């Protein structure tokens, strides 16, 4: 597909976060966040489906989490690119309603529909796309989207799929910590070694970069894709639920609405504790009150195990980067959870440098994504990102042992070539099992895909020579091509992803998403025409008491009554065309009445009397 760059500046940068998402762009002075219609820069990554199938995203959906929790979903990023077996822990803590048939791709039940995580994320992305389009007054067809650096192939692919379903061409996936380093513009200050500590809502990343004359070379990255502010919320939530169980003699954990209200209360308290030494978790629910004081000392003690879980990956990353701690010149803090004082002091203690917190930790990733968009459009010429793959890539060999082809922390794009042959005379295909991970046995790594080399010419065992090239592209996504060494011809490869959607499934979802977008548009139109109908019906009812009404003929009054009744009949139908048509009919039936009223008004005005 050829890319249309006729609209410079309209490649947006998107931070698709666990808790909040943002969209940004490059203007002439630098990166800038696009606010939503409500003026808020943050779009909560929450999606709610109304009983009529209408989709609500962002702040309004966050409110619906309280009143219709069973039709609302949040933190879906935790499920991206994962199979059912991977997410058992999350299912204990998050109110995800898993539909049957979710083994390799999870399906969430919302209302009477099921949605895969990429489809939910696509709804968030579509909202951001619309916000940007409203802001620019022009279409936004292309985006750079950020992902946690430690995301594996399937999680990246799922994010790319989400973009496609939302109608966006995803020009690049950028790692969140790397994007943040771009936004900080640290390259302007000096050359040196920088660590980026990124603790978000649901993921943790640490990256160490070398900055030299505008080149951002990532030396190593590490992290945990299931560690973030969510975990702190769940910890506090569990404590509050236990309190309530003993105080109220009532188990609230089965009450969706109660849990969501309590969750919001603990989040509020958590956020408060970043600024004040003591606060309260407060809940008023169904005539009962719960209150618990919590001070920072206790809070720190509670969350120490969570904060400590980030330090191991930091040490491993430093080691992999081949640097000593005292060689690290700067540390950059990213993600809302880095506002927590204990996190700040833990990072300062480890790196022995005062971390950078000048930029808003919620915005810095989106700003960096916009800078990367500027690099791709040619607007930013002095910077270049050289990122790495976070996990080693290997293939299954005899006895379930992994043979590593591309090691973790290799600069991407990275490639490796292997030659495969047949083991049996006349064998027509060779199956290659690709895994990601650091362990030696296949069962301890993550299955990525099975590639089937098909239609091999029948020949004696060991005679076929198929050269397979494994290439991790600049998005961190694996591409596999195969070539027959004897003939030099490209060999077909059939891909079966272990987790995630096939290309056909994505295509189908794109189609459905377009149809759904039309439905949503129709639903909005219905709402708007109903408002218009209300206005005209109220006006007509008022006019019936007006002198002008009595100047009408019986036939004219009958026509008005008929038009009013017909409008009322279609008012609750879900067809905006019909409502519009009946509004028009009533408009016409009342033309004479309106003229009469106007004339009376003019006459009244001429007489100088009030009507």
């Amino acid at each position: 597909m050829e890319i249309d760059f006729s609209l410079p500046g309209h490649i947006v940068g998107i931070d698709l976060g666990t808790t909040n998402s943002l969209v940004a762009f490059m203007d002439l002075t630098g990166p800038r966040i696009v606010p939503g219609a409500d003026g808020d820069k943050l779009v909560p990554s929450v999606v709610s489906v109304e009983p009529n199938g209408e989709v609500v995203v962002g702040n309004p959906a966050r409110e619906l989490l309280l009143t219709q929790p069973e039709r609302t979903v949040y933190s879906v990023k935790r499920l991206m690119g994962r199979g059912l077996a991977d997410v058992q822990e999350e299912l204990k803590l998050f109110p995800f309603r898993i539909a049957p048939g979710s083994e390799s791709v999870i399906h969430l039940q919302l209302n009477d529909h099921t949605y895969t995580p990429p489809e939910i994320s696509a709804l968030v992305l579509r909202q951001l796309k619309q916000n940007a389009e409203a802001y620019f007054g022009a279409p936004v067809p292309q985006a750079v989207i950020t992902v946690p650096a430690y995301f594996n192939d399937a999680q990246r692919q799922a994010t790319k799929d989400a973009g496609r379903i939302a109608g966006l061409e995803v020009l690049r996936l950028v790692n969140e910590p790397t994007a943040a380093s771009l936004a900080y513009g640290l390259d302007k200050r000096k050359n040196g070694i920088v660590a980026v500590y990124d603790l978000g809502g649901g993921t943790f990343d640490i990256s160490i970069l070398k900055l030299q004359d505008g080149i951002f070379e990532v030396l190593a990255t590490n992290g945990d894709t299931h560690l973030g502010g969510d975990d702190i919320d769940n910890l506090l939530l569990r404590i509050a639920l236990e309190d309530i169980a003993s105080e109220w003699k009532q188990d609230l954990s089965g009450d969706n609405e109660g849990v969501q209200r309590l969750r919001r209360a603990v989040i509020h308290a958590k956020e408060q504790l970043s600024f004040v030494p003591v606060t309260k978790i407060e809940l008023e629910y169904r005539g009962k009150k719960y209150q618990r004081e919590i001070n920072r000392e206790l809070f720190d003690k509670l969350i120490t195990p969570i904060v400590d879980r980030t330090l191991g990956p930091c040490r491993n990353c430093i080691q992999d980067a081949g640097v000593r701690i005292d060689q690290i010149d700067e540390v950059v803090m990213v993600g809302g959870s880095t506002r927590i004082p204990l996190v700040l002091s833990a990072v300062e203690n480890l790196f022995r440098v005062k971390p950078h917190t000048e930029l808003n930790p919620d915005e810095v990733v989106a700003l960096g994504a916009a800078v990367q968009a500027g690099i791709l459009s040619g607007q930013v010429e002095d910077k270049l990102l050289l990122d790495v793959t976070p996990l080693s890539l290997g293939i299954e060999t005899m006895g379930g042992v992994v043979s590593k082809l591309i090691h973790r922390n290799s600069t991407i794009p990275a490639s490796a070539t292997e030659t495969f042959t047949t083991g049996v005379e006349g064998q027509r295909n060779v199956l290659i099992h690709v895994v990601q991970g650091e362990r030696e046995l296949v069962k301890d790594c993550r299955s990525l895909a099975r590639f089937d080399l098909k239609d091999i010419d029948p020949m004696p065992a060991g005679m076929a020579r198929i050269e397979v090239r494994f290439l991790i592209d600049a998005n961190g996504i694996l591409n596999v091509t195969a070539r027959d060494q004897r003939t030099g011809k490209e060999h077909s490869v059939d891909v079966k992803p272990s987790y995630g959607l096939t290309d056909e499934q994505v295509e189908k979802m794109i189609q459905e998403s377009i149809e759904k977008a039309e439905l949503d548009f129709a639903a909005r139109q219905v709402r708007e025409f109903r408002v218009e109908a209300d206005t005209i019906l109220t006006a007509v009812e008022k006019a019936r008491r007006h002198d002008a009404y009595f100047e009408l003929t019986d036939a004219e009054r009958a026509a008005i009554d008929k038009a009013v009744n017909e409008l009322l009949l279609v008012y609750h139908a879900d067809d905006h065309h019909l409502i519009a048509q009946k509004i028009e009919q009533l408009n016409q039936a009342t033309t004479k009445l309106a003229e009469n009223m106007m004339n009376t008004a003019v006459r009244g005005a001429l007489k100088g009397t009030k009507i």
Partner: protein
Amino acid sequence: MSGANNCWQCQQSTGGQLFCPACQSLQPPPTDYYPLLGLERKLNLDPSQLQKRFYELSRLLHPDRFMRKPERERQYSLDASSILNDAYRTLKDPVKRAQYLLGQEGFDIGEQRSKDVPPELLEEVFELNMALEEMRGGDDSVRPQLEQAEKNFSNMLADVDRQLESLFGQYDASAARDTLAQIRGVLNRRKYILNLLGEVAKELAPSV
């Protein structure tokens, strides 16, 4: 007709350049690391010079720079930057660099039999294996012996690295196959010592 050295885009002669002198299009990249980086086939390389070349070429070849180019050129950019990254990763490490050059010169490096004990180490390895066995059996009294072995093998590794350095210089002065054969021998010995060190370190490390 387009020949091997003619630009795929404008058909002019490229003179073997990465970018066509006439139309600036990126050409299919060489797969050999040395010519891609524009370096002489030497075993001693200046790390800062290597990094400088790597950064310069990254700026020219990275896919980020080809978003607005035709599909075919984007593919060449992907190929070229993946080879460039592989090349930098390989050449910045002296051992990987030597292995690469040996492979390029037709030496069989895939068939190293690291299980074969170099004769001069035979006795030492025999004793070490006994000590390792006892340590695994829970006998902590051999710990000092293992620590001593670790020291010995570390010294040997340092020796080997000095030998390599000298052989690298020898090869760069006059590219003799004989020198390469010696380098292969030293590399095998090095690998063997590294494996032993790994074994010892594993037993000495506090069990988790």
